[in-house]
């Protein structure tokens, strides 16, 4: 008797069942993916190239300062110079859509896992699976479910990239000072208010690191997605690989590197003051360390002042 576990067959029949019965769902997802991709791509590819470069450089300037602004401009001009502009914008659109969807899925799961040990215990191995499965393998069912094109690329990218988002969100929320959460409870705050006013703001640095990781993983996956016809820089790399086209391979590769660096610096800046000003108070101010020098040691250097205040307090209390 031959020893053989037919794992692959089980997966295949499972996927067959899904595509037979849930086809409508994946068709719907495909339409959503394509719609989002086209909209974002329109934003990047419709305006004149120089306008996009200048706007990107200005945003970079605001986010991190003039060095990053100039670096962004130079990087984009390099991409333009090696004739990869359109491909780079395609890939960028793919990253933006995939990362957005991955964030949208992973943060709620992370919050849920942080609040429920059972969920956490279930989610953890799934995330291990998603993160360690060789990225190319995702493309196989993705083609089966979404056919060739951008949609399977986005699907595979979301699966591959969401793990750090879930993990770092859970970690961040679980790491929030227990006493501060207790303070919320002690003053009678409900769970939703504690999440909104205490846990999320205090976990924000960790969540931001998660989002940064999602974006970087998305970019690496987007290149691999070139194998399923997602186009963009990934498509160029695939083409160069099959034709052993060294110049094309390195030009497309460099464009990926430049995009990666720019995206990383942008998202890494989410926590700092400039970016917060840029985001216009979208997030509450984050905690920061450091104590200004020369502060007084306490408010009651003058005991009389205190008792005056106490008297004043008595007066205010006595008033109806």
């Amino acid at each position: 008797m031959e020893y053989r576990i037919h794992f692959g067959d089980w997966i295949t029949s499972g996927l067959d069942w899904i595509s037979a019965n849930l086809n409508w769902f994946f068709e719907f997802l495909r339409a959503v993916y394509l719609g989002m991709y086209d909209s974002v791509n329109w934003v990047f590819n419709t305006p004149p190239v120089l306008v996009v470069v200048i706007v990107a450089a200005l945003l970079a300037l605001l986010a991190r300062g003039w060095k990053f602004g100039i670096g962004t401009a130079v990087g984009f001009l390099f991409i333009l110079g090696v004739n990869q502009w359109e491909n780079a914008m395609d890939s960028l659109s793919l990253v933006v859509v995939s990362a957005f969807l991955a964030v949208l899925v992973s943060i709620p799961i992370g919050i849920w896992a942080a609040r429920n040990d059972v969920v956490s215990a279930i989610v953890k191995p799934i995330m291990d699976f998603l993160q360690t499965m060789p990225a190319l393998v995702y493309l196989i069912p993705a083609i089966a479910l979404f056919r060739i094109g951008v949609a399977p690329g986005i699907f595979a990218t979301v699966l591959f990239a969401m793990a750090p988002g879930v993990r770092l969100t859970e970690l961040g929320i679980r790491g929030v000072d227990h006493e501060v959460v207790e303070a919320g409870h002690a003053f009678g705050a409900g769970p939703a208010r504690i999440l909104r006013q205490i846990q999320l703001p205090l976990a924000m640095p960790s969540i931001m690191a998660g989002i940064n990781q999602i974006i970087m993983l998305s970019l690496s996956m987007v290149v691999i997605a070139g194998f399923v016809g997602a186009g963009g820089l990934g498509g160029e790399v695939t083409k160069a690989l099959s034709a052993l086209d060294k110049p094309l391979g390195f030009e497309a590769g460099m464009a990926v590197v430049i995009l990666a660096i720019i995206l990383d610096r942008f998202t890494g800046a989410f926590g700092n003051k400039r970016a917060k000003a840029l985001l216009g108070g979208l997030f509450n101010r984050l905690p920061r360390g450091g104590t200004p020098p020369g502060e007084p040691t306490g408010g009651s250097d003058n005991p009389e002042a205190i008792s005056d205040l106490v008297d004043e307090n008595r007066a205010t209390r006595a008033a109806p």
Partner: protein
Amino acid sequence: MTDTIALKATGLYKVFGKHADSAVRKLQDGATREQLGGATTAAVIDASFEVKRGEIFVVMGLSGSGKSTLIRTLNGLQPATAGTVEIGADNITGAAPKRLRDIRRKRMSMVFQHFALLPHRTVLDNVAYGLEIQGMPRAEREEKARKVTEVVGLGGWEDKHPSELSGGMQQRVGLARALAADTEILLMDEAFSALDPLIRREMQEQLLELQATLGKTIIFITHDLNEAMFLGDRIAVMRDGRIVQIGTPEDILTNPANDYVEQFVQDVDRTRVLTAESVMRKPRAVVHLTAGPHGALKAMRDEQMSGVYVIKRDRTLIGWVSDRACLDLVRNGDRNLESIVQSDHGAVSSDTALSELFIPSLESALPLGVVDAKNRLIGVVPRVTLLATLGGEPDAAREASPDRDPIPSHVVDKALEVAIESGALKVEEVD
């Protein structure tokens, strides 16, 4: 009677781990904490106490004694495994989550050891936090928070963030947040333990000052016995999850319930806890104003003293007379004591702390007098007693006789004899 009780805990248990309920039953049947086995930890065992309205009730114990868990069962942050906590008519144990939140909003607030401020909010927003949860409109709660911030001495710091403040100031914010919520009960969990000693002292004094005006019911957790003694109207001492003694600071100090408490209180600064009343002795000799110089002189001779306190019939303290002044009066044949009574007796009130007796005691010619609220002489504190109390042996001083040099008794005898011979005094008055 019941409305003088702010909070009542009855048979409170908190057991962590599996099979908590059966662990409670075992404990109720007399099992010790150790017999429960490794998987279950009994943090609070059979705690029962009442906290009176407006009192500072201190729960004191070393780390691991269960005091922090105990305070958390009082507001339901840790649901009790067994027993009840009643706040007025409300029962905390077994209250539905929504009801529990409501009780926390309206009836009790909490100050935390590590301040537990919201780091992303300003001082003012932190202080207003409880009010915000209560649903108070922004303008109103900010106004109220501003006032309370002033009261705790942080005026001008409203727009700073907690990380810009020193530890002591941060805890003032924590205190202000609890005060602003304007709840009757204040739970303070090691509130000053994370502060350095000088700031801690300052905060303790400020708390007492505030308490004098606000009259909150405060349940204060600490591991520092000196702090417990300084702040507490009553103290519950906890050990290994059980409350081993509840009493006033003086009770705990002078009548420790067991060796553990006794060992614990050894290091306490007694001078700040004990009062004049607790160490005073019965005055060895006092004379009524009507006794005259002869009576006074005789009393001093009998007790070998150089001076004596003079009181009225109702024991009101008038002053003191010295033997030499009396002797002069007797020699002059004057029978009225009033002319030599010195009013600078320097007596202290009965609730004065020992630490404040030293200087008056040095300045006083006689053993320091102790008077009650109606200025009646109820005792004296000889210097020796004061010293002996510091040594932890107040009884050792009982027989000691502190005094200036009295006039030798033969001189007194002779003066009295002369007075009798001259007819100024009758024999029976002297013997």
